[in-house]
């Protein structure tokens, strides 16, 4: 894991001091709420329906046990005993008091954490593949570049007052688990024909009310030029992005209006100018310095197959089901990555209480080289577990209520906080997720349906990623009554696509029925090992639309 040096530590301390001063000026009336708002947002502090919400950065989703314990402490001391892991690999506390926020930031700084740029019209916390450093298909550990980008983008003097927020994601594998095509900038680590390391850069993706997939603007950017290239994209956007209408201010609109070719031309022209200056050249020594922090932990030399695990699977069906669903192959023989579902049946997606956070910290310290990851699907991962230890890990997770064996299944639902917390929402999301989860609770039936990604947003801002759900659910307000539009065919993976609306919007109490109708159509049409997404892509929307119309005409 990356560790702060004296520079990083001082930077975070000075930011806490600056923010404490901003809070004091607000309380003294020297700053209007209109002026304070962007300043507090740039430090992750929102004002929601009932209270302030503090969003803490978890850069590229990587946490140590010590950091997780500190999050548990904060949940206990300053919140109501729980936290909410988000689709951007961060954690949100829903009930902090404004006066406590400087103390929370101090507590975070002690464990090398912060809330810097987790909101606001600036470059946000960088996200990456949650299996980074563990996945067998990895070209390069994406956390190295992510950390380089984190530092370059922190307090960037030119790009802290952009037209709108700006999100960057990095994948180190051809299998895209970081959803790069729906980010403002998406980066894939690649190798060219000569075997040299470089990056493919996409720009202009995003969700919200105008979902778009990013276009490639750089086929192969060499490692030492990557920051200069990113600065070029940012400058074109800062100069030309729309500022007259916040709904048209994201870079995706600029790329769409200019056209991908023209955007590429402008970025290349800007890139050429920046390269002339030379100051943004990334030194090899700095890449190596950061790389050294992400060196593999001291893995043991183990056989690929674990007799202990096999024996446990044979005698314990529940454990076998967990292994079948929640284990991801590791690049080192004898190890596995374990996904911890934060989607218990009927629970709130992404929530964990303080005791659970402590339990995860304990298990990670003992069995996963002290490392934890947060996924953009609102789950956790223990990246490096010996297969010999899987049974013990599963037992410990079971004791903490964290052994739900549903990763990637119909009940592994992404949902935004929705109308239960958020002042932008039109409708509740959490209760819809809970209804669907309860309806499809049966293990055998879930497994029979296979990979099925349901994503729920409580408004058009799409924080719940509904556009890229195999089944997407969007809450809308119709004359004061919550309704839900259902779409099919979205994907955030390397086969990225945007879903299309099928059928009329339904009321909250009919959503689970509608999902069941969709699943029935899938079961009737699927062939071979098709997922619902594959069947939909093959047969089209029509059979689904027909059944939905028939079932939900009133």
């Amino acid at each position, binding site marked *: 894991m990356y560790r702060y040096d004296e520079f990083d530590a001082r930077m975070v301390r*000075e930011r806490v001091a600056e923010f404490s001063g901003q809070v004091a000026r607000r309380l003294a009336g020297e700053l209007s709420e209109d002026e304070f708002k962007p300043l507090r947002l740039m430090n992750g502090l929102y004002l929601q329906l009932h209270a302030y919400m503090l969003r803490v950065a978890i850069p590229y989703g990587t946490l140590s046990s010590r950091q997780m314990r500190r999050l548990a402490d904060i949940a206990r001391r300053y919140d109501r005993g729980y936290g909410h892991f988000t689709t951007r690999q961060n954690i949100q506390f829903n009930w902090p008091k404004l006066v406590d926020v400087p103390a929370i930031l101090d507590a975070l700084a002690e464990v090398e954490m912060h809330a810097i740029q987790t909101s606001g019209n600036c470059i946000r916390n960088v996200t990456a593949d949650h299996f980074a450093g563990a996945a067998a298909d990895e070209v390069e550990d994406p956390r190295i570049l992510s950390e380089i980008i984190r*530092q*370059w983008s922190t*307090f960037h003097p030119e790009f*802290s007052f952009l037209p709108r927020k700006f999100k960057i994601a990095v994948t180190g594998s051809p299998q895209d688990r970081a959803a790069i095509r729906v980010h403002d900038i998406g980066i894939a680590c690649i190798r060219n024909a000569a075997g040299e390391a470089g990056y493919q850069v996409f720009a202009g993706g995003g969700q919200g009310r105008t979902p778009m997939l990013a276009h490639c603007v750089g086929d192969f950017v060499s490692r030492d030029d990557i920051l200069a290239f990113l600065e070029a994209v940012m400058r074109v956007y*800062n*100069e030309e992005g729309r*500022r007259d209408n916040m709904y048209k201010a994201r870079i995706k609109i600029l790329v769409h209006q200019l056209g991908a070719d023209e955007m590429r031309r402008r970025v290349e022209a800007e890139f050429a100018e920046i390269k002339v200056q030379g100051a943004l050249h990334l030194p090899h020594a*700095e890449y190596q*310095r950061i790389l050294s922090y992400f060196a593999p932990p001291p893995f043991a030399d183990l056989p690929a197959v674990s007799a202990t695990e096999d024996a446990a699977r044979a005698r314990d069906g529940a454990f076998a089901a967990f292994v079948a669903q929640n284990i991801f192959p590791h690049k080192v023989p004898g190890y596995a990555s374990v996904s911890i579902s934060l989607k218990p049946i009927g629970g709130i997606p992404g929530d964990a209480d303080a005791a659970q956070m402590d339990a995860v910290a304990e298990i990670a310290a003992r069995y996963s080289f002290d490392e934890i990851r947060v996924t953009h699907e609102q789950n956790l991962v223990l990246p490096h577990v010996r297969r010999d230890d899987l049974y013990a890990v599963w037992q410990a997770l079971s004791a903490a209520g964290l052994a739900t064996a549903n990763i990637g299944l119909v009940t592994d639902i992404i949902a935004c906080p929705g109308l239960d917390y958020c002042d932008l929402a039109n409708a509740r999301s959490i209760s819809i997720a809970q209804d669907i989860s309860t309806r499809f609770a049966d293990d055998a039936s879930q497994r029979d349906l296979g990979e099925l990604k349901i994503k729920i947003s409580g408004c058009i801002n799409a924080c719940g990623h509904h556009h890229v759900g195999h089944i997407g659910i969007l809450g809308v307000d119709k004359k004061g009554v919550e309704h839900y539009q259902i779409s099919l065919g979205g994907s955030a993976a390397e086969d990225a696509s945007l879903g299309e609306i099928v059928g009329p919007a339904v009321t909250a109490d009919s959503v689970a029925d509608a999902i069941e109708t969709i699943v029935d159509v899938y079961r009737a049409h699927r062939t071979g090992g098709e997922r619902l997404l594959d069947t939909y892509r093959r047969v089209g929307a029509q059979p689904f639309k027909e059944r939905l119309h028939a079932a939900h005409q009133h």
Partner: protein
Amino acid sequence: MPPISISTRAPGAFEDVADDAPLPVAGAVIVSARRLAAERDGVFARNDAVGVVLQSHESPMQLPPEDLQRLSLVVLMFPKFRDGRGFSWARMLRTRLGFRGEIRARGHFLRDQIFFMARCGIDSLEGDHRITAEAVSAALATFTHVYQPAADGRRSVVLARHG
């Protein structure tokens, strides 16, 4: 209130001249980009320093290079503190266009932005009553180190690490 310096350069004394007002007989003036383009020869013939005001949508790249060479001051307007284009304009004036005159920020901005303004190459400020000398000196001391190169010549943390 006179402009407050945020660099080693002392702010110059200039008179703002509206587009429909005659140029004064003597003294340094600030004119709009439109007037400069329309009355270039007359404006520069006065033998006094000339400054130009750029609105936030006006890129300094639009100024003819020969004009830029003769300008002593570029005033960048910040109509609303959320409009961050001025940061890019300042940066380009310094690092791309090689502008060596004074760059001044004018309009609505917060002390929380002054550190960034200095980094982007801005020399002086004309803000509201809260932009005082005390606020400026506190703002400039916000961060000891910087993570990235900009227009102020400060060594980034990356370079400091690898000396």
